[in-house]
């Protein structure tokens, strides 16, 4: 068995877990990560015990359906896809629809345009390695517009099946498995767990820098410095991974903060990996998303011409929420042209990203404009999604902070709440007895008894002795209200039981 396949995380298996909780019969053992703190057999015993208990007592669950907010999955939580996007995709998939009067004219024209760019006029053919050239160009124009006119060059952009695929490919180029000491990558705590998986699976070491929870999860340069120093003699840090807006913590970096990070990367000679998937999810007043690329360029020389940067985006989040289509891109800045050639070869062996996903990227980069027949509906749908998210983050903040032993800073951006749990010693003790992390214990109970599927904080990393849960805030308002109702009710009972 390959020794690099390690990892100690709550496995990415939403359906699997809620099926177990919601049904009375335990179909198969929970797939448990072989972690530093958890003991495989013990968790199985716990889940089996719960299931048996329910079976024996004929216990009925107080809920009909599990609310699954474990992942940043808008559609999974009940949000609707954008009509324009789906109409265009349908017409691309089944071209006779282009002649259908049931579809708006701009949809049909757009589909025709997209098909015209596909080899052989079919979404079933492979595209060029980096993506359909006109779509790559479209993305570069989108980036340029977003960044106030700063040019973006198509040759520096690669489309891939989801952004994590690009992140993996770039990490693969950076990580020298044979090197000693091992390659290190600075990561925030808390961090998106899948990227951590990518890093460790490639044989690199993570170097955590702690975001400051007291200051709304702010990134402090002194902490970056401390983290870098801690790596001395342990590994060779080559890259700095930042997530802005954050995941799981819902911060949006100020421009000053972005500048500080860039300066730090320049001083310490680190490759910058900027995960900007949530750039369309900004709610905080006085908050604004400013891209790393733009900031880097505006800082001028020596930074603008030297800091090596990879920025990532995708169709999975924002207003499209098209996680299942698997399409993302990376824009590479200031990379060595010789290295770029190898990056191209690396992407080429993956053949290409799914064409429907690529088309969705194009629609994201180039949505309907005022005057287009689809514009009014498009605008309405975008505004609705935005209103729901703004409302939800406010409600979540209100409700969580009204509960004892539960606190949450304002969610400025991103798609998650990452509230802090103040667990009692009794609860912590019980968790230990079961061989579980305290927040895993809380989440398991919340799933079993409350029917809400959330992620435990330890999964994403947190300061020792603190506990959190993560859940997606992109759900229809009625679902969110139900979620908050169940969460409140469960939380009160839990706190009482372990007081």
């Amino acid at each position, binding site marked *: 068995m390959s020794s690099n396949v390690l990892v100690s995380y709550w496995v990415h298996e939403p359906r699997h877990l809620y099926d177990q909780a919601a049904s009375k019969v335990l179909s198969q053992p929970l797939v448990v990560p072989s972690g530093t703190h958890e003991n495989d057999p013990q968790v199985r015993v716990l889940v089996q015990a719960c299931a048996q208990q329910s079976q024996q007592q004929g216990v009925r669950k107080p809920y009909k359906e599990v609310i699954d907010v474990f992942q940043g999955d808008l559609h999974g939580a009940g949000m609707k896809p954008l009509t324009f996007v789906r109409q265009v995709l349908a017409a691309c998939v089944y071209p006779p629809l282009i002649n259908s009067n049931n579809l708006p004219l701009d949809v049909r024209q757009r589909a025709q345009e997209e098909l015209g760019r596909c080899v052989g006029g079919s979404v079933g053919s492979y595209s060029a390695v980096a993506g359909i050239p006109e779509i790559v160009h479209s993305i570069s124009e989108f980036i340029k517009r977003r960044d106030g006119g700063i040019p973006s060059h198509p040759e520096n952009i690669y489309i891939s099946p989801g952004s994590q695929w690009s992140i993996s490919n770039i990490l693969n180029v950076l990580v020298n498995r044979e090197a000693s000491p091992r390659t290190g990558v600075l990561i925030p705590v808390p961090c998106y767990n899948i990227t951590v998986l990518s890093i460790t699976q490639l044989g690199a070491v993570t170097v955590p820098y702690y975001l400051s929870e007291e200051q709304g999860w702010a990134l402090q340069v002194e902490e970056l410095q401390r983290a870098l120093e801690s790596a001395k003699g342990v590994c060779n840090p080559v890259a700095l991974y930042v997530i802005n807006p954050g995941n799981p913590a819902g911060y949006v970096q100020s421009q000053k903060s972005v500048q500080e990070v860039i300066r730090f990367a320049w001083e310490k000679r680190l490759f910058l990996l900027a995960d900007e998937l949530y750039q369309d999810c900004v709610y905080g007043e006085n908050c604004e998303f400013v891209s790393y690329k733009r900031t880097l360029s505006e800082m001028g020389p020596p930074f603008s011409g030297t800091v090596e940067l990879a920025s990532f985006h995708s169709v999975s989040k924002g207003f499209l929420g098209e996680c299942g289509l698997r399409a993302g891109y990376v824009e590479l800045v200031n990379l060595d042209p010789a290295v770029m050639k190898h990056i191209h070869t690396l992407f080429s062996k993956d053949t290409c990203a*799914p064409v429907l996903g690529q088309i969705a990227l194009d629609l994201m980069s180039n949505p309907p404009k005022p005057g287009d027949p689809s514009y009014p509906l498009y605008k309405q749908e975008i505004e609705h999604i935005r209103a729901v998210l703004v409302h939800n983050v406010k409600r979540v903040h209100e409700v969580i902070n009204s509960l004892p032993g539960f606190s949450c800073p304002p969610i400025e951006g991103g798609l998650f709440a990452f509230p802090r749990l103040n667990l009692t010693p009794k609860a912590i003790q019980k968790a230990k007895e079961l061989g579980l992390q305290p927040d895993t214990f809380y989440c398991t109970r919340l799933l079993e008894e409350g029917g809400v599927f959330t992620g435990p904080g330890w999964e994403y990393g947190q300061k020792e002795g603190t506990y959190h849960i993560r859940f997606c805030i992109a759900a229809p308002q009625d679902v969110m209200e139900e979620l908050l109702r169940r969460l409140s009710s469960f939380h009160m009972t839990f706190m009482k039981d372990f007081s």
Partner: protein
Amino acid sequence: MSQQAVNGVAHRGRVLTLDSMNPNVKRVEYAVRGPIVQRAVQIEKELKEGVKKPFTEVIKANIGDAHAMGQKPITFFRQVLALCSYPALLEDSKFPEDAKKRAQRILEACGGHSIGAYSTSQGIECIRQDVARYIEKRDGGIPSNPDNIYLSTGASDAIVTILKLLVCGEGRDRTGVMISIPQYPLYSAALADLGAVQINYYLDEDNCWSLNITELRRALNAAREHCNPRVLCIINPGNPTGQVQSRQCIEDVIQFAKEEHLFLMADEVYQDNVYAEGCQFHSFKKVLFEMGPEYSNTVEMASFHSTSKCYMGECGFRGGYVEVINLDPEVKAQLIKLVSVRLCPPVPGQALLDLVVNPPQPDEPSYATFMKERTAVLSALAEKARLTEQIFNTVPGITCNPVQGAMYTFPRITLPQKAIDKAKELGLVPDMFYCMRLLEEDGICLVPGSGFGQREGTYHFRMTILPPTDKLKVVLQKIREFHLRFTQEFS
């Protein structure tokens, strides 16, 4: 920022350089999309700009992309996928009832009833169940467990994932992986990337590219000197060679794998592409189980399939799966972790796979059209396979084995010594020189045999048999004329 600034000025030394980057990535090559294709794309640009050439279009016969060459998608599949993409169409009477039923079933299995939601990393459960049923039916009732099926982003993704699971060790203990020469260069690329040891076993060109156990044994024994051989990869039907393994051969390979304790990787993406008389696709799993429990309970195996080839040709959807046999449960747990880094396979590709394994049945409205389309594609391919072999064998200096299956021909070309010398002068491998010339003179893009591997001193090219029959005839004719000209020029 200027283009130069965007690409950086190296006055200070970059973090990521040829020296500091992952040395394995430097070793990765992928000929199917390699330098010759890059030149072809350049030529296409020039044509668009109005540059005069002895041809008006570049024919890209380098890549196994059927739709790119004009093959039509299967109507039923596209109807269901359109319904899945935009469910409001379920109200549209122009769509047949069986398509609507399929779409509804798929949507119900998706989070929020949307193909835009994540699925589990292993793939939507009811689709895996359908895949298992398809495999059972195909293999004469031998059971298939949906838990052993992992949907993927095309078969390539699954192939790389399984290899990741298998490659480990250092130095002399580094995993060795046996691959056929010639091979589909995804394998060599993946092995280079993973730093695994590539163990070449040669297919027998003089015997229709057949596989010899003696040759397998030779390669394995030689490899044991410097690595730890653990895996044996087979592509059946073959790519680029097109050979369809006989049942006996498959049994022999399984026997060999058992004796030598090797993990079998069976790439079966061309399983519906079988043309030659007397040839039949036998799945490795079926043969394994028919050999009895001594084999079926012990030999560890992974079989791969995809939606990119066969009669569907839906490369752009990136649909595929792997079925694992006799994998240790703890290893399976690790496999789940590996696939979770991808989050999930593209849902439209999963949906398409569901339709491929669950096509219209005789009692359904779409059946007649479906069968007509499927038969048309496969019979056209069979005809083109025959035509290609026939025409190439009339050219002095080109010998072509029968194209028994898959989508390619891999003929052997005899090159005059002067041409070989000229190639050396230019720093090119002889068959690359040949193919570049063909590209420049006739606008036909093929992949040189060196990209797939071949016996020392032999030269080949790989051409797809996918262009429409009329165009294919023209292409074959042009290659014939080119070859004669080329031979003449360097005589």
